[in-house]
């Protein structure tokens, strides 16, 4: 029983991480119907950005987590935002009206490029890099289970930020513009909305969340590598699909489901953790085949 509870807790933490990334996928897909494959790499790059920020800090600042940690978040988010904006401007925007295969393949190209750029140019990026220990240590003990404080922080950040995002999109003027663009870009344009600005902002929001996720990933797992982007990107994408692409709430709930599947399948399914990956993909395929619109998505509209 305590094993089950512990795995449930682990699953929730994993889900929180995946949710932060999945929001970026779901928002971009909701607005320009692009599977932004490179989003996982934005998450990876931000993690290295956070690490680089820490490395560049003077020694006395490194010792005080209260200063170093926020700066790392800032650095990671900044790197993620810059990468996302550049990528949107130079890779995706020229293809805005291209047939749908073209941006998808471009996204794959950007993904390969980012991963390789970090591998080649970041010092020692070929092996796992340890993440600085500026995060809260110790664990929260809840009866038979214990969750590291980094995990708790991750869940709090993830849930908090997604509520914030949902509120922003529902309440603010810009959020309304985003929803309008997602529904009908041409009409939105006629109503005085600048679609380019909305799209860039969507990428920026996604990148900020991915930046938070990137730094927290390092804090939770203590080391990072260049493969983390692809793997977690796929998980996050699966979560977004599961929840219904385009839906904020769906992405978060989908992410928690994926996190739980991963840990529970690793514990209870034949093959153990070596096959946890496989079960996620099985779920992905089943969802796509039997409920392509996801749990909270609208049935797919027929596009011309």
């Amino acid at each position, binding site marked *: 029983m305590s094993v089950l509870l512990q795995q449930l807790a682990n699953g929730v933490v994993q889900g929180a991480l995946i949710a932060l990334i999945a929001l970026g996928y779901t928002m971009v897909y909701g607005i320009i119907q692009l599977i932004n494959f490179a989003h996982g790499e934005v998450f990876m790059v931000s993690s290295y950005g956070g690490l680089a920020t820490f490395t560049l800090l003077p020694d006395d600042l490194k010792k005080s987590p209260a200063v170093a940690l926020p700066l790392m978040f800032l650095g990671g988010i900044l790197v993620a935002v810059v990468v996302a904006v550049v990528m949107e401007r130079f890779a995706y925007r020229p293809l805005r009206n291209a047939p749908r295969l073209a941006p998808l393949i471009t996204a794959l190209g950007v993904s390969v490029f980012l991963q390789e750029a970090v591998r080649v140019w970041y010092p020692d990026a070929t092996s796992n890099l340890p993440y600085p220990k500026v995060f809260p240590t110790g664990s929260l003990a809840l009866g038979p289970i214990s969750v590291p404080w980094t995990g708790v922080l991750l869940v709090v950040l993830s849930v908090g930020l997604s509520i914030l995002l949902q509120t922003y999109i529902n309440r603010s003027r810009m959020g309304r513009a985003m929803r309008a663009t997602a529904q009908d870009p041409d009409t939105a344009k006629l109503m005085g909305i600048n679609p380019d600005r909305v799209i860039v902002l969507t990428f920026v929001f996604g990148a900020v969340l991915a930046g938070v996720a990137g730094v927290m990933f390092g804090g939770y797992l203590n080391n990072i590598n260049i493969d983390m982007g692809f793997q977690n990107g796929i998980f996050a994408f699966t979560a977004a699909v599961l929840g219904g692409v385009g839906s904020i709430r769906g992405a978060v709930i989908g992410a928690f489901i994926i996190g739980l599947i991963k840990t529970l399948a690793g514990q209870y399914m034949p093959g153990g953790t070596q096959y946890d*990956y496989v079960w996620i993909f099985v779920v992905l395929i089943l969802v796509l085949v039997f409920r392509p619109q996801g749990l909270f998505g609208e049935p797919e509209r027929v596009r011309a």
Partner: protein
Amino acid sequence: MTTTAAEKRSALAPLGKPFAAVGGVLSIVAAMLPWVTFPLNDGNWPDKSTLSFFDAPFALTGFRWHMLVLGVLVLVAAFAPTPSKGRVVRALGWGVLSVAAINGIYLVVKGGGFGAITAYKDVVAFGSIAGVVAGVLVILAGYGIGIEPPGNWRIKLSTPVAYLVLLVSFGAVLYAVSAMLTTGGVGAGNPYAGAIFLSFLGFAGGLLAALNGIGYTKWISHLSEEHRVFSVIVLLACALLLPFTDAGNEYWMTVAANIGIYAATAIGLNIVVGLAGLLDLGYVAFMGIGALVAANFSGAAAANFGIDLPFPVAAVIAAVVAGIFGAIVGSPTLRVRGDYLAIVTLAFGEIFTRSAQNNIGGMTNGSNAIPGVPQLSLFGTEFNKQLTLGSVKLPAGVLYYVLIVLLVAATMTVFANLKFSRIGRAWIAIREDEDAARAMGIRTGKMKILAFLIGAMLAGLAGAVFAHKNGTVSYESFKFLESITLLAAVILGGMGSIPGAVLGAALLFVLPEKLRDFEDYRLMIFGLALVLIMRFRPQGLIPDAHRRAELADENVDGTHVDELPKEAKA
């Protein structure tokens, strides 16, 4: 607000011919100027371009000879009556620019600064700068003259003359391929091999684009379409003659055989992606399944079953098993479309990789791979041994090369026949508009699964050959990146086009061999190249004659259906 293309052109128009003249002469001059001010650490930059000034203007070799040829061609193209003049001149200009820029940039990097290509210690060497200026001038001249659609020759030839033209053209292709493989030497022999090769590629690309602009390549493809059987025989003969050229050594035979395997796989993928329009991101898994099955049924050392079947039987089993998996992977296409389908195939690919990595069912041997897959042999000669044909000694591995050329030819035949059959037309209809296709009475579900099945079978067959040729089979060879590389080969070459898939596979698998200097940056350049192709030439290098509705703009390239040769329409 911004100057439109038309305004730019009108500003350039009067400058077209003068620019072409100056640029052409300048590139000829650049060919004879010195290019480097001092010998580099690895010795003189090749072809006497260090410090030499007109020392042997009639004995130019290598890239300086290429510059000279391009310069002369620019002058000829600009002042002789040439069809689609602007396009030809622009293509040649890009050739000049890339040759000059590649050599210049390499010299700056290797020589440690711009002193290497300008002035250093009283020595001047402005060759590359003159070349770059010439290239830019010629490109602008091309725009000034005006970019028209590529020429369209309607010359009808009598059969023997047409045969002769085809023979000469394909012979030239053979020569070009051999030259491309051997340029810059084999492997690490020449310290400048990478740059020399790239420069050659720039030259060859410029020439090819010019030929395309003039309408020659289109004419040849019409001719070969008319005399299909003859061209196929000649092309096959050319491919089989490669071992007799300069490229006929063990190293290039191995590389060419590997290219062939991936080309065959890419053609299979082209059925799924190019014809049926179903994006498959996990395709290499079928090749992996084929390789693993072949390894297990051929008595490999680490195989589980201890079954030792002859190669043809094992290959057929491999193809069938891969085909079955193809049908399974394809079955979601009944319900899933577009991007979502791509994700489903990606998920299947990842499931394969993960399962193979964990040695599922004891069949893949996990990360230890399956070693010791026996070499193929015919009449007691193992395929990886040297072969003596009369008095000619053929390099080792030549038999694999021959086998794989035949494999590629076979897959091409399958592809071509399918494409122009009822099934192929159904696929193209599905690609263009699935609902309309269904309304026309095409059973779309069956057809889509068939596309996956046939594509997977071809990949499985290629995988079986792969297993025997390489001797070991590891899941490492069949990961996501390989799927992307294959997809890139198909897209780079041109979706739905047969020569395109071969060319794409050749480029993507020769370049890494040639560019060992840049090994670290290989994948990065690959990613960047994908982005750039999608941006600037989404229809690929050799676009399919059927206009690609998925990727090309209207009227960018390709032919309207009513212009197609009769055979294609029938």
